[in-house]
């Protein structure tokens, strides 16, 4: 295409042109202040020079003035909308802002104006892969390859793009073409990384052939790779075997597949997936008798592997199960395996199996001799039985076993941890935290124990739990000059800590802080997404395509993770609750309000008073303590220590809506329910109905959702009395909204808060929760308490150890 003549205002005198070029160089060197000086110089003479405005904008953006930066770029764009430089600048800004789709469009536009720009072409391909636009990606990569066929990464880049698009045959051909055309290095020039790259490339090419269903070609290819005299030989025998076995399975060549699966099993008898694969290729998946024979033989063959002993427990029944379980469980206990109970816990879905396993442990317990030779059997069977009874719900019996064992040997760490768990299940959360801490104190270098103790502390009910927990985790983190590791756990993506903290803050009724921590927890996931960007180029340059493709596939499932969903639900719930507790929200008009939070001062100043640095040498003492021997990082300035910026001048419902949409997008049906709840609060009944209809169309429709839909309909028709009736129904159904009992109590109370006449009914519902389990009971008491209802005595009757959460 022919470029249009540039607009008159783009042209610069030779002198100013030199300035502009320098300005660009300075920007690239990240000398923003200097670059801006040049830009200003140009602008004094040509104030509407678009490209200069844009580059200045980009510099301002990087100087922490994002708003001004963007408006300068927009101004530049207005003056000169056909400049590839300005579009490129805009793309860079959007990319920094992580708006990958917008960046993609801007790169594309820049490229239509200046099709020869290699850098823009490369960056465009990055955006395309980041946004999973595989079709256009193939076109971009093909162009890169045509322009620069001498670069290896351009060939593999195209092949990866084709693979991702699903065009495996062309991907394989591309790689073959490269291997045939690539100049061969002299053996003496070959480095180890060349070998690794060749190996990766060969295996990737083979994978493409397999996916393209070119099985015969793929097998021939593997023969060549295996052949030591071939110049394509690779040393990775394991992968060759795996590929070949995979081909045989796909081809239905069962005899060969059986043989190779057994070879693979011999190489690694600890891989559960291989045992399942063997069942499958033997065609005995559904024949328990034959499977049992298979596992027995394998158990003899691989005496050190857990798999052939534990896996049959899943399908065996009756006496066969009892015998196999006896052999397995008693070995674990005799061998003092701390995870013994964890290994069989999943079998407790089946009550008969649970009983049988309990009986095995009981037999060992009863048979343990009083002298030292019996001590180990006594301790480990007692610990096992404690877990057994706890799992079956008999916490008192569990506690007796564990206390008995602790009296015998108070220095066995596992006993204290088990005790902590039992206490937690009894509702004795404070004592549970003490027990976890007792375990920790026995072995200070064990990070697992430290983490457990911190987690139990966050779930306890003492006023200083949060500080205590932070003190604990800081024993293992890289602490900043404030002396704590909270920042480090953000940097190190310590999701468990951030999400536990969020839940605790929510329980404390501190909405903004809960939001802040939920946000940090969610940030862990978006960081995973953004960090991919670094690998698109790196992996191709290093030639590690196989791991790279695994990574992309992992990233595709990232937001479907339970943790992401849990934190997203948490943040939405908190936003809605904050909105409901705002004095002027008018909530309760449509559907009932949320469980209350502490009042937020929306007028409070969010500027942080910088504390004057104490003039002690505390900092240096901390530095010496640092376990990693690294210099202590500076305590980064927290611009929003109380999370107020997340709520002040923020449309709480709109923000919640963004998260609810994401939740629906990743397939959590609550996403649509939340959307409806938000729309109802915004009086957007039509939109609420639409979300609920979408839910109805999926198989996740819930009675609660259909009642919500009727509320919306009644509102649309102006039918107040029906709306009121239906509201009564929502109250009854709300506890079914969430699966987690924790939310049941919260949800039930939510309704009662907004409509005082619901109080009695809420009381009944909360009473029902008390009988579920200690955790639910504690929450019900907490919720009732806030409603001015008394449930504590009832709960304590059922759970004498119950420690009720702090009242607000």
């Amino acid at each position: 295409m022919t470029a249009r003549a540039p607009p008159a205002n783009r042209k610069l005198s030779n002198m100013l042109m030199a300035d502009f070029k320098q300005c660009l160089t300075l920007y690239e060197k990240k000398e923003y202040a200097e670059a801006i000086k040049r830009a200003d110089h140009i602008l004094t003479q040509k104030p509407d020079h678009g490209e200069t405005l844009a580059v200045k904008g980009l510099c301002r953006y990087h100087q922490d003035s994002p708003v001004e930066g963007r408006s300068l770029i927009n101004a530049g764009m207005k003056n000169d909308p056909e400049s590839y430089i300005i579009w490129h600048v805009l793309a860079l800004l959007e990319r920094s802002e992580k708006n990958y789709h917008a960046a993609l469009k801007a790169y594309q536009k820049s490229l239509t104006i200046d099709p020869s720009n290699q850098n823009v072409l490369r960056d465009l391909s990055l955006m395309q892969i980041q946004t999973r636009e595989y079709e256009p990606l193939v076109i971009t990569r093909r162009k890169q390859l045509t322009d620069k066929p001498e670069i290896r990464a351009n060939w593999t880049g195209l092949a990866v793009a084709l693979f991702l698009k699903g065009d495996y045959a062309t991907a394989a051909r591309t790689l073959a073409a490269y291997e045939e055309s690539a100049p061969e290095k002299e053996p003496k020039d070959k480095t180890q990384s060349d070998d690794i790259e060749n190996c990766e490339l060969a295996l990737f090419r083979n994978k493409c052939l397999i996916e393209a269903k070119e099985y015969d070609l793929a097998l021939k290819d593997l023969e060549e790779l295996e052949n030591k005299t071939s110049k394509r030989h690779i040393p990775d025998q394991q992968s060759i075997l795996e590929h070949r076995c995979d081909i045989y399975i796909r081809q239905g060549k069962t005899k060969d597949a059986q043989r190779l699966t057994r070879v693979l099993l011999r190489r690694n008898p600890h891989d559960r997936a291989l045992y399942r694969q063997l069942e499958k290729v033997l065609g005995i998946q559904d024949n328990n008798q034959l499977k049992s024979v298979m596992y027995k033989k394998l158990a003899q063959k691989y005496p050190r592997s857990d798999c052939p002993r534990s896996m049959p427990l899943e399908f065996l029944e009756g006496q066969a199960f009892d015998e196999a379980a006896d052999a397995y469980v008693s070995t674990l206990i005799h061998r003092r395996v701390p995870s013994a109970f964890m290994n069989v816990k999943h079998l407790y879905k089946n009550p008969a199996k649970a009983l049988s396993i309990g009986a095995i442990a009981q037999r060992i317990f009863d048979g343990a001799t009083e002298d030292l030779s019996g001590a180990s059997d006594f301790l480990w069977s007692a610990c096992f039985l404690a877990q057994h009874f706890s799992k079956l719900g008999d916490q008192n019996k569990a506690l007796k076993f564990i206390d008995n064992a602790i009296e015998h040997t108070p220095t066995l760490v596992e006993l204290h941890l088990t005790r902590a768990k039992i206490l937690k299940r009894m509702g004795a959360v404070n004592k549970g935290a003490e027990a976890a801490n007792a375990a920790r104190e026995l072995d200070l270098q064990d990070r697992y124990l430290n983490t457990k103790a911190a987690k139990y502390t966050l779930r306890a009910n003492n006023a200083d739990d949060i500080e205590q927990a932070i003190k604990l985790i800081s024993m293992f983190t890289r602490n900043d000059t404030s002396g704590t590791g909270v920042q480090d756990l953000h940097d190190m993506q310590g999701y468990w800590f951030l999400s536990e903290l969020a839940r605790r803050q929510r329980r404390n009724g501190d909405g903004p802080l809960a939001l802040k921590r939920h946000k940090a927890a969610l940030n862990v996931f978006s960081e995973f997404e953004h960090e991919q960007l670094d690998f698109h180029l790196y992996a191709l340059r290093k030639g590690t395509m196989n791991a790279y493709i695994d990574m992309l596939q992992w990233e595709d499932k990232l937001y479907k993770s339970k943790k992401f969903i849990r934190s997203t639900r948490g943040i939405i719930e908190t936003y809605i609750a904050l909105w409901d507790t705002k004095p002027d929200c008018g909530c309760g008009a449509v559907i009932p309000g949320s469980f209350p939070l502490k009042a937020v001062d929306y007028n409070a100043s969010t500027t942080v008073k910088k504390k004057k640095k104490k003039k002690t040498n505390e900092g240096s003492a901390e530095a010496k303590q640092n376990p990693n021997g690294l210099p202590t990082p500076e305590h980064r300035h927290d611009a929003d220590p109380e999370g107020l910026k997340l709520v002040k001048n923020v449309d709480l419902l709109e923000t919640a809506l963004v998260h609810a949409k994401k939740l629906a997008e990743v397939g959590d049906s609550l996403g649509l329910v939340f959307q409806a709840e938000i729309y109802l609060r915004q009086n957007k009944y039509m939109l609420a109905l639409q979300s609920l209809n979408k839910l109805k169309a999926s198989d996740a429709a819930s009675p609660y959702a259909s009642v919500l839909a009727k509320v919306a309909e009644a509102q649309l028709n102006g039918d107040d009395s029906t709306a009121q009736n239906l509201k009564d129904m929502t109250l009854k159904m709300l506890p079914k909204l969430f699966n987690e009992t924790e939310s049941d109590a919260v949800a039930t109370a939510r309704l009662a808060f907004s409509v005082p006449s619901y109080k009695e009914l809420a009381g009944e519902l909360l009473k029902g929760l008390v009988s579920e389990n200690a955790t639910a009971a504690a929450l019900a008491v907490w919720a009732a308490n806030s409603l001015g209802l008394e449930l504590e005595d009832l709960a304590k009757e059922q759970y004498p150890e119950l420690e009720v959460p702090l009242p607000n």
Partner: protein
Amino acid sequence: MSKVQLDDLTPNNLGMLKRINSVVLPTSYTDSFYTEALTVGQLAKLAYYNEIPVGAIRCCLEVAPEHTKPSRIYIMTIAVLSPYRENGIGGMLLDHIERYAAETFVPELSVHALTDDTEVIEWYKKRGFEIVDEVKGYYKRLTPAKDAYLMVKKLKKDQ
């Protein structure tokens, strides 16, 4: 490999010494007793049975007035969890200290024992300790305060 092994006291396993002493011994000890236990090197040891700490000894060096060299090793605490007693674990801990004394040319060991704890007194006697003194109300922290014997074992020069 023997089921019983001795190991050094470290900041990380100090909690084990605390735990053992607190369940076995009648008196409780101050925080500084424990933090200083980390500074005495081989004079503090944990005994492990099947990798579980079940016994511990903690001693200190005594330097007589006007002397520069330590004149004896004083056993501040020795304790074995009751289910693990009478298996030679206490003896192992004591032997370790005795060997260390010999290696470092410390001529004697000493310990205080409750006057009415005949079993322990017998235990020490069997291992070459002799009663040299009786200290009235030595265990001040017990209510009522109890008396103690000071017991000493002289080590042979050429051991």
